[in-house]
């Protein structure tokens, strides 16, 4: 069964459209990861204890 699945996967992956979509998703995931990694911390300021009240 696994061999069959693998063969099917190879056949599907050989299709240029599938490869293009797969690559697009791959690059999109990289970009989204970068946005997540470098976008979040910009609005996080270190906490401090306010002692004036």
């Amino acid at each position: 069964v696994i061999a069959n699945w693998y063969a099917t996967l190879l056949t599907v992956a050989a299709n240029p459209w599938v490869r293009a979509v797969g690559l697009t998703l791959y690059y999109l995931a990289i970009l989204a990861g970068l946005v997540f990694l470098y976008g979040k911390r910009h609005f996080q300021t270190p906490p401090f204890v306010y002692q004036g009240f």
Partner: protein
Amino acid sequence: MGHPVPDHPDRGAAAGSGASTPHLLPAAAAVLLLALAVTAGYRTARRAERRLMHAVTTAPVSDLAQRRALQLEACRRHDLLLVYGSSEVVIEDPRHVSILLRDYPTGFAPVAIGQKAGRCVLHVQHLAALGRALRGKKVVVSLTATNFFEGNSMPADPYAGNFSRVSANELAFSTDLSAGVKQALARRMLGYPKTLEDDPLLAFALRQLADDSLKARALYYAALPLGRLQVRLLRLQDHWGALGCLHDPNLPPDPRAAAPGPRPPGNWLALAARAEREYRGRSDNNPFGFDNDLWRIRFPFGPHANPPGVRDANVRQSLAQAPEWDDLDTLLRVLHELGADPLLLVTPVKGTFFDRIGISADARRVCYDRLRALAREHGVPLVDFDDHDQDRAFLVDNSHLSSKGWVYYTYAMDAFFHGRRGRDLLLGPTPGGEGDYPAAEPVTSR
């Protein structure tokens, strides 16, 4: 020497078919999809800002001072008044300005943009970040008199906790501000290097701005296009952050919908008198008018009493060298260059307490006089409430307003918003009349 690279199976097949760069189209498609997602997110955020901005007036968003997008949206509304300040602006009170003017009784509502432990060095950054949007816009800046008694610069921790990267970048790469103002701000901001560690481009720009040399100026202008690009990216993040705030399910509905409509203001003096009566019962465990709970926490054994005026020399020295003066001067220059219409309100000193700890009225007078002189120099109206220096019920401690104090503050804001100036900003008897409220002398507006 290296191994020969075997031909990729695709290469031969793709030759001459236009697919010799199989990664190009997917990469371009990914960038395009991301751009579409960002645009959709931006438009969603802007819609939320436009729709929910008024709700922010009744349920102040946390970290509003660090949300430039929301401040900018408030600037665009003719019926919102921006109020910048420190903790006194954000700490809750039953007669806080945002409650007294919650349903737009006189046609506007305040947007309280305060930061605990905030100082002018931070307010000026947030204001500068709004740029030309401030042109012709009425802005109230609340100052705490006691901050001018501190000879040292603001500590690093509260500065870092209140710092806004988007505001800092906006001002560093601003094309609306003069080089002199940017230089003054850059020199102050470089005093807090920890806040610049994650932003090498900002740190670089500030270093060049602080430097007087021709080379530094050239380097700054060389970095300016990159800086403007960074500002654009930070703005997107700012909108995204604002969207997160505005999706709070506890945000109340737009208060205008339930508002009974414009109506004449009530009797402010009666409101202040009632607030004072109510406060008496909450401030009767000490002779200075501190809130009972605050007094118990702060001074469980009472304050250290000093002979009258014994600390005057030290206080005068601190007053002379407090960096808050230069920061306020820069703030007023920024507001002038951006074309804003500001009002300065000052929470006075709790004189009864200062008398006890050895700081005389004469020493305190130095602070009030210098504030007035600075405001006069810039042609900005100022109300310092110095006539409440001995008022037990105006502050709940050394710097935070009581309900009574808020009534006076709100009256001044209301009068200012409706174009009144000079003595008309003061709640009290008519000028020249006699009464319990000796009039301070606000500087005539420009």
